[in-house]
């Protein structure tokens, strides 16, 4: 998400830089009654005088603007997962990388007898764990995994530990 915004910002910044310079040069060139340098603004001017608001080409342009605006707005409003989770306050602010924490919880869950592997996804408030059991009956694995991961989050010192939700898939579920 941050990367997408950064790439978009770089592209738009470059567009503004180049576009702004070209428009300024075109204004100066037009001031000397010369033909357009890069932008065919004389064609655009004629077209804008002839075409009405209800004609098809402007309508498509407006639809494009609305679609681009909506896409950009949805991108900004999209619920993003945190890049890091704050640790309990200390003399120096500290956090733990979300992805490394997810992998660490996977390993912690996999240490429990009966769990073959686990996959954790940490969101803003909760951690969803899908554990795969090597047993035919998953039995009481869910609370066992949940308690182990709660203990692990407390040991690491996550300031606001996400609520752990565990789903165990037994051999019979696959």
């Amino acid at each position, binding site marked *: 998400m941050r990367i997408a915004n950064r790439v978009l910002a770089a592209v738009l910044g470059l567009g503004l830089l180049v576009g702004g310079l070209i428009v300024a040069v075109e204004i100066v060139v037009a001031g000397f009654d010369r033909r357009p340098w890069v932008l065919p603004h004389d064609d655009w001017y004629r077209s804008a005088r002839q075409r009405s608001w209800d004609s098809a080409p402007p*309508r498509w342009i407006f639809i494009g603007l609305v679609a681009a605006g909506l896409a950009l707005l949805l991108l900004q409003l999209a619920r993003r997962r945190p890049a890091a989770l704050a640790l309990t306050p200390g003399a120096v602010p500290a956090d733990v990388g979300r992805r490394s924490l997810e992998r660490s919880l996977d390993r912690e869950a996999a240490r429990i007898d009966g769990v073959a592997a686990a996959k954790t996804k940490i969101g803003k408030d909760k951690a969803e764990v899908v554990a795969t059991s090597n047993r035919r009956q998953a039995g009481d694995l869910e609370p066992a995994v949940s308690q182990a991961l709660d203990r692990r989050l407390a040991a690491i010192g996550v300031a606001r530990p996400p609520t752990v939700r565990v789903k165990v898939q037994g051999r019979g579920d696959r």
Partner: protein
Amino acid sequence: MRRGPVRLNSAVLTLLALALLAAGGYGLARGYGAFGDARAGDPLLGESMRDFVADNSDWFWPLAAVLSLLLAWLGLRWLLAQLSTATVGRLPVRADGPGHTELLGSGATSALARDIEDYPGVRSASARLVGDHPVPEIAITVDVHDDADVAAVRRRIEDHALARFRSALELTKLRSQIHIRLADRAGRSVR
């Protein structure tokens, strides 16, 4: 990435999205007759607008050129903000005598990282000085093993490594941030 550009990008892109929606929405509404059928049939560039530009061409076009250059400059600043890492290359060191002494930022941060790497449970560490504030900020990334005591590592960094760093550079004020990554004892760490 620093928080400043992250917030700036989010704010500017949100404003741009709203501006695109407003412009496109107005165009569509007018084209579909929301302001009357007569206005829907008007040319995009109306006579009143053309007359206004023609009557004020002595200041309108110079102002448009200046605004274009301003937009280009803002675009350049925005682009540079994306490319900048804000890492401080050199750090001034207080000296009693005449002259000016600077310390290479990478030398100081490497020494700090080596200090931290000696702690039990730490697999690797890196540090960098981040600028754009009168008080320098040190950003430390520490890869610790799963079985390490994270709280103890944090305390040692705060009480030992950062204290030594501050004292060596004679810094009275230093903002710090520790980023922990958990690593499998045998494998590699991920962000």
